[in-house]
């Protein structure tokens, strides 16, 4: 038997924070690729601490629904899962290369494949592009359009910016959009000045965040000038300095994220049969769960 555990941050204050986690877990459940699928959280239940013991399977694939390698994926999650002899060196990563490490946990007799975060997987590049397709309602979006991938920046962790730049470069190499830029909330180049960085009239802005919350639904829309007050909402596209800004919510809410979760587990040796194909069919551009642009309130914690 094999089990999949999707580990995410969750929230004590915002009930929507866990929605993407449940949505992607459900998509994986529908494929039947795993005997058991569980969600686990730092701030909700089941907690990381208790999740593995709820499984009957002996082979467990843990996929962090986090954007970058850093404090949570390297310290908090392995510690709380009680992974024996864990060392971030086992990922042998320079910030965006983590694949998986095979470990045991102190409190259960199981083999645990601890995977790198979804945010740095190559398949994430496709999710960002699909997000751009969905927000513009144009499956061929690219020509004459600029794409901004927005990250948090280096506040706590330099790998956060690396992940944003990694996907930005990969999309740039596809030669699909006229311009592709990485922008940040708390470092240069800043998302506040988004229109300064693009020549194109149309700019698609995709935040590389897992869940919608304070940053994606309050900070970024106001900082970019999409709206004076996030509570009033904003148009898609919105006019800013003569540009049309197509702003999507957090990329982590995109249905295709389930594909990245599955790829992480498959890279770690999970037998997922034809699950990838069925997920891709189910979450093709028109099937996105994530294009609900109603502003929501609540901080991420």
């Amino acid at each position, binding site marked *: 038997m094999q089990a999949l555990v999707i580990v995410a941050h969750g*929230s*004590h*204050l*915002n*009930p929507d924070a866990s929605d993407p986690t*449940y949505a992607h877990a*459900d998509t994986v459940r529908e494929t039947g690729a795993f005997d058991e699928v569980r969600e686990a959280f*730092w*701030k*909700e*239940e*089941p*907690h990381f*601490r*208790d*999740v593995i*013991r*709820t499984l*009957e399977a002996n082979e467990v694939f843990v996929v962090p629904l986090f954007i970058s390698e850093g*404090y949570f994926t390297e*310290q*908090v999650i392995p*510690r709380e899962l009680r992974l024996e002899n864990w060392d971030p060196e086992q990922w042998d990563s320079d910030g965006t290369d983590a694949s998986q490490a095979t470990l045991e946990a102190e*409190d259960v007799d199981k083999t645990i494949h601890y995977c790198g975060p979804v945010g740095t997987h190559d398949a994430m590049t496709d999710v960002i592009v699909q997000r751009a397709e969905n927000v513009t309602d144009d499956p061929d979006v690219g020509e004459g359009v600029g794409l901004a991938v927005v990250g948090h920046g280096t506040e706590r962790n330099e790998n956060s910016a690396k992940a944003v730049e990694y996907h930005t470069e990969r999309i740039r190499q596809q030669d699909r959009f006229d311009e592709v830029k990485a922008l940040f909330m708390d470092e240069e180049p800043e998302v506040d000045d988004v229109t300064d960085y693009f020549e194109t009239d149309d700019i698609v802005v995709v935040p590389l965040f897992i869940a919608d919350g304070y940053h994606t639904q309050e900070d970024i829309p106001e900082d970019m000038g999409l709206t004076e007050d996030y509570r009033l909402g904003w148009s898609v596209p919105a006019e800013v300095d003569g540009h049309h800004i197509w702003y999507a919510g957090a990329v982590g809410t995109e249905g295709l994220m389930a594909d990245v979760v599955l790829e992480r587990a498959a890279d770690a040796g999970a037998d997922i049969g034809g699950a990838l194909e069925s997920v891709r069919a189910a979450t093709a551009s028109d099937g996105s769960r994530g294009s609900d642009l109603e502003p929501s309130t609540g901080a991420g914690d």
Partner: protein
Amino acid sequence: MATAEFDFDALLETLESQSTIAFDGLRIERDGETYTLETPESEQTGLEADDLEVALEPRAAYVTNWRYWQETVGGEGTARRAFLRWCERAPLAAETDADEPSTTADESLEVPARYDALREGVDREWGQLCLTARLVDDADADDPAGERVYDLWHVDDADTDLADLEVYDDPRDARDLSTTDDDGRYRPLKTAPTLVSGWAFIGLSGAELVEAVGFFYPATIANWHRELRGTLDVDHWLETAERQTGIYDVIDELPREAVEWMTEACCVDSQCLRRREWQYDEGDDLEVDGGDGQFPCREPCSLVVAAARKWTVLESEEEHTYELELTTSELNQLEELIDAVAEGRTDEIREADVYDGANRYRARYLRAKRFDDEGSLEAQERHDD
């Protein structure tokens, strides 16, 4: 040949491969071509196959019970199996590693009594959940005899007509049902006693029941099972606090007496249905009662950890002596206000009930009288020098 009650051929096949069936009071041994049948009511030896079938007719419940647990449920040694056995008051001793019968064994039912009870439905409570195990009563060809189904609803709805409840069949619906309380407020603590009522899950399989309970009260079954087997791994306050890093690194500085106040504030039955098993430290128990919950709490949860961070900061402040002018009734009113908030009863205080110190008009009056222009209590810090 199959009888109406059970598949005798399947039983014989099992006896071919393992020569003995011993389960829940039923014991059948094969010795070559003859069989010994033993139940608590009788023992027959030297039975030919045909005699065995006849002898089993009046004891069909033992056979269908064996089939249900070995084939439908399976999962020997799992929490799922133990929980489902607990649901119908089946003996749990076999599910524990302990030699002595478990503490719940005294109320467990042997097969004939259990089948009588299952025809009516066996009710159990798990936090605010009411679980009913019952035998499938229709003679549907798809369901072998002895198959159980499970119903799940809120304890407050025990006497509510099913027609008045919203009926669900997908365990995942438990996630939405448990997200907010009656006032629509988010429930970050799944085991808070604020689960909404008005819904029911009917006819779940055992696996579905366990899944639904797992969404209402995550990991409670796994930890209950560990406790049952004597393997619950409790992490006490100090261990948990010292493990923290980042913004929670400070919480191991929370004074011991503050940990008492914290557990009294957060971890008692009125706030959380888990039974707190963790203490200040191994061999250093907290005075506050851990509660009577059905399932254990094995370590401080993330809400307690987050709140502890706030209290650690607050407790690092020095105490001062303040002077402020209050009548005796106003002092009493302050106590009533704190009490009303702490008990969560501010919503219950009637608009015109000015006899309650926590009434809104009473609070507004006190504020108008005793607050200064900056909106603070007119209190003077006293310096004794």
